[in-house]
């Protein structure tokens, strides 16, 4: 599997602010890669370096086998970018913007342009100044998807879209991958990332905290187990089991968390107490995300 994006030990400071502090990122060709982090974590800075708009202070970044700072012309033919806050020219219509951006990138795919405008339910005859935020976002998405590219760099592309349009967006991005495209999707809408992404990277304060598939990340994290038991269990006894924590026993109900390697042992013990109901929830991305932040902020402070 080849890499579409390879970033190693990337650093970038703005004055005294450190935006990127040794970031690593690896996006494989043909995958949708989620790029997670809170505001100010360095997601946009990374994407802007990949676009050759910013120059990294040190470290390396390779994009589709080229240097994003030097090979602007050849690389930009093969990628499209959608920012989170789209600014349009106030006196150009949406249709004109879509056409000029797609032509600059090498040409308009007429069939795709028409279908995207229809699916995103966009009126291309309105002037830039009269579009709402969500509609400006749609113009940028249609412009990006109307030309023939291999890589999409999307920086919080769905901010301002309504839930219906978010669903269209997810569909369209999946089709793009199916056709062989690669997507870097920066977002903090975790449900979106969870539904779309093959792998995710979580960054914090300009550094990579975790990356891998959701399954891999889940493996690192703890599963919450809730059980209703026929024979009550002693909280202290459960807590002595390896890998078990956060034990709460109220009458016949028990809740605890357990590392994935120790789940089997826990179930054996609970089984001896006549389980009448059991739910075991793997951590959601949100829990993973929160946990990463709790642990790293504890480690840094």
């Amino acid at each position, binding site marked *: 599997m080849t890499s579409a994006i390879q970033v190693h030990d990337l650093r970038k400071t703005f004055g005294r602010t450190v935006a990127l502090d040794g970031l690593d990122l690896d996006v494989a060709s043909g995958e949708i890669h989620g790029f997670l982090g809170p505001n100010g974590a360095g997601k946009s800075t990374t994407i*802007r370096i990949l*676009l*050759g*708009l*910013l*120059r990294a202070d040190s470290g390396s970044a390779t994009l589709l086998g080229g240097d994003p700072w030097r090979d*602007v*012309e*050849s690389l*930009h*033919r093969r*990628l*499209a*970018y959608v*920012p989170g*806050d*789209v*600014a*349009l*020219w*106030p*006196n*150009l*219509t949406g*249709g*004109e*913007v*879509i*056409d*000029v*951006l797609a*032509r*600059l*990138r*090498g040409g308009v795919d007429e069939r795709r342009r028409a279908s995207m405008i229809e699916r995103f339910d966009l009126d*291309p*005859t*309105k*002037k830039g*100044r*009269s579009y709402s935020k969500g509609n400006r976002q749609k113009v*940028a998405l249609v412009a990006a998807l109307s030309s023939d590219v291999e890589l999409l760099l999307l920086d919080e592309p769905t901010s301002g879209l309504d839930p219906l349009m978010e669903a269209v967006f997810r569909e369209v991005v999946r089709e793009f991958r199916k056709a062989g495209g690669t997507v870097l999707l920066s977002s903090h809408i975790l449900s979106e990332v969870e539904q779309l992404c093959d792998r995710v990277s979580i960054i914090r304060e300009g550094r990579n905290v975790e990356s891998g598939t959701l399954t891999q990340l889940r493996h690192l994290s703890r599963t919450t187990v809730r059980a209703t038991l026929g024979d009550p269990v002693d909280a202290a006894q459960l807590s002595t089991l390896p890998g078990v924590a956060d034990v709460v026993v109220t009458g016949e109900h028990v809740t605890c968390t357990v590392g994935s390697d120790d789940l089997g042992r826990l179930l054996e013990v609970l089984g001896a107490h006549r389980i009448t109901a059991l739910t075991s929830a793997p951590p959601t991305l949100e829990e993973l995300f929160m946990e990463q932040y709790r642990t790293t902020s504890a480690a840094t402070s």
Partner: protein
Amino acid sequence: MTAVAELARPTVTGLTGTTSLLRLAARRDRVLVPVSALGLAGFVAMSAQATFALFPDLRSAQASMAPTLANPALVAMYGPISSLGIDSIATFKSVLLGGVFLALLAYVVVRRHTRTEEESGRFELLGAGVVGRRAALTAAVLLGTLAVLLTVVLTVALSIAVGLDAAGSIALGVSWLVIGLSWVGVTAVAAQLTSSTRGTAAWSLGALAIAFLLRAVGDTAAGDSPGRFLSWLSPLGWGVKVSPFGDNRYWLVVLGLALYSVLVALAFSLLERRDLGSGVLPSRAGRDRGTMGTAGALTRRLARGTLVGWGVAYVVLGLALGSIAGSVETFVGSPEVADMLRAMGGDAGSITDIYFATELHFAAVGASALAIALVTRMHTEETTTRAEAVLATPVRRARWALGHVGLAVLASAGVVLVGAVVAGLVHGADAGDVGGAVGRLVGAALSTLPAVWVALAAAMLLYGALPRLTGLAWAALIVFLLLGEFGDLLDLPEWLVDLSPFAHLPALPGGAFEWTPLVALTVVAAVVGGAGIAALRRRDIG
């Protein structure tokens, strides 16, 4: 219940929050307004003092200045002189020029706190709080008015302090009050009419240009011609007619206050008829397909409105210049005066030639403003992140920048040439030699372009290397203009005056043509502009 009553009341006046908005606006303008006011007052006081020093006795002043001041070229620029008193001579250039700068200040302040705020969406942030519907416009109009009053009071005080006649100084204040308040009103209305900052600029600056031309034509028309009435249609004309240090017509303040009241009332009634974010003039649906395929085409398309506006302005300018030229010779009949003007204009030819040479240099300064506006658009594109959208396509930065620079070069040359051709046609038809007049003026117009390129290149360098200081390009142009206008009067050292590229232009038509300064200016422009593009290629965008 009381809470409901308190909440309900503000909607009646729509003025709730005006004081806090005014305080916020005043805080944002705490440098701009006082510095401009002081600058304008200082400009009057300093040029008056310099004139006093230059002409210790009144007679010599009258003898040397009187014929010059009757020159229509000067009357077109500065208005007719109020009297032949030394105070009037000392403020000849500052009355109208300062009034125009004050109108610009009023326009900037009012626009900043109305349409610009609304377009950027910051208003919604405020409007969602407890702020009445009329509060923002009220605050902007109040601040604009305060800025005008502050400037007027400072100017009157400083004028009296440097020894200008007190009654005349107050008349000067009245003149500026009329002009300044008029543009508070004009801008307040313009901000309601259109739905963009640029549209507001076009309406209020367009009104300023028209007002200037109306009074230029009116003031230079022959004594008995009905054309003289045109000056009365222009608030700038009223400002001139106050005639400070001459007739001191204080009563004209009534006209200014009346126009101010009518325009402000109109602005508020327009505000009632529109939604937040929109203008009274509707935004129409446009084409669903675009034809642009290159970054240059996009740049040209975005500049289209500006180019048309400037083109029209220069056609009108050419008409005015050409029609005034015919009367230049008759105004200045005596051979002594002709000799003196010749001395002033170096080795130039006829009086008409000197007149055209002077006005073409002004036209070139104007074209530089266009060039700077087109180059600094890149900065606007960058700060609004629209540049990012273009630069994320295969368009290289140097190419994007060259598109803007190339357009600025062509457009500035285009307007100067249009002005020269039109002036040549009108003057040539008058003098019976169309071909000759057009040819000479076009040649002269071409010779001013290298100075325009230097101003353009300076803007490119600022934007490329120090984007946050891009606005200094305008300051530089104003300094060039003031150095040319007042360098001799203030007796500034020659090296300082020579900093202005316009100081190196040959006096054409009529004067001797020299290649050296033109080639030197062109080389400077190429080096400076090239450095700007090189700097842009190396820096971070956004």
